[in-house]
């Protein structure tokens, strides 16, 4: 998958996850929402891992190599 396509899938997963977060904040006992959260969380983690490996870190916590590559990749508004 190219960067653009993978990024779009990650954004979509993040959006679904965030939407569920807003619901869960005020409906913490809703089982169905919690199940959906866990499902999207796993999906998000998988996509994020794939992105990190191929296109660089998304947060500075993810800079795991011995080289400082946080600023090597373009910033999100640069294209």
């Amino acid at each position, binding site marked *: 998958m190219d960067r653009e396509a993978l*990024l*779009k899938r990650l954004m979509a997963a993040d959006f679904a996850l*965030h939407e569920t977060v*807003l619901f869960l*904040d005020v409906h913490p006992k809703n089982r169905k929402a919690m199940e959906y959260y866990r499902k999207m969380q796993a999906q998000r983690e998988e996509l994020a891992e794939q992105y990190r490996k191929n296109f660089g870190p998304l947060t500075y916590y993810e800079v795991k190599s011995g080289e400082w590559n946080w600023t090597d990749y373009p910033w999100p*508004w640069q294209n």
Partner: protein
Amino acid sequence: MWIYDKKLQYPINIKNPNAALAKLIISQFGGPDGELGASMRYLSQRYTMPYREVIGALTDIGTEELAHMEMVCAIVYQLTRNLTPEQIKEQGFDAYFVDHTTGLYPVAASGVPWNANTFQSTGDAIADIMEDMAADATTTKEQPTISRIRKPLILLAFRHFEAFRKNAIPAIA
């Protein structure tokens, strides 16, 4: 604390500069109903909110507003890239340009700089949530104006009104 997630909430890929459009869109950054004010509103109100569920909603929505602000700034940035001096003048961007060149400055389309007078933080749960709903209802005003240009962005903001109406009010009732 916050940590930066190095991506936009929704992709912004603008090919052609359009300073006239940027002059209008910038209001969604620093205007009276812009994303800067939205994020500061929720993130300021959360400290005195008496219910942890609502604090959660204010924290997570306030954080998302920062991401909206980033998208709006990305739009303005891309719309004002590679402008010629002629385009700056013809498209009415000269007044902004003389003060800020193409730097992102939080200002309304009318030219008024961003001001904290555009929101309240009262320390009263009901008053604050009512204000939050009124603020998110302003997206219905923006819909016929800006949303033709960036509909997905407006839809993002409008969801919060529904979130407050359906969730925050029952949570404290």
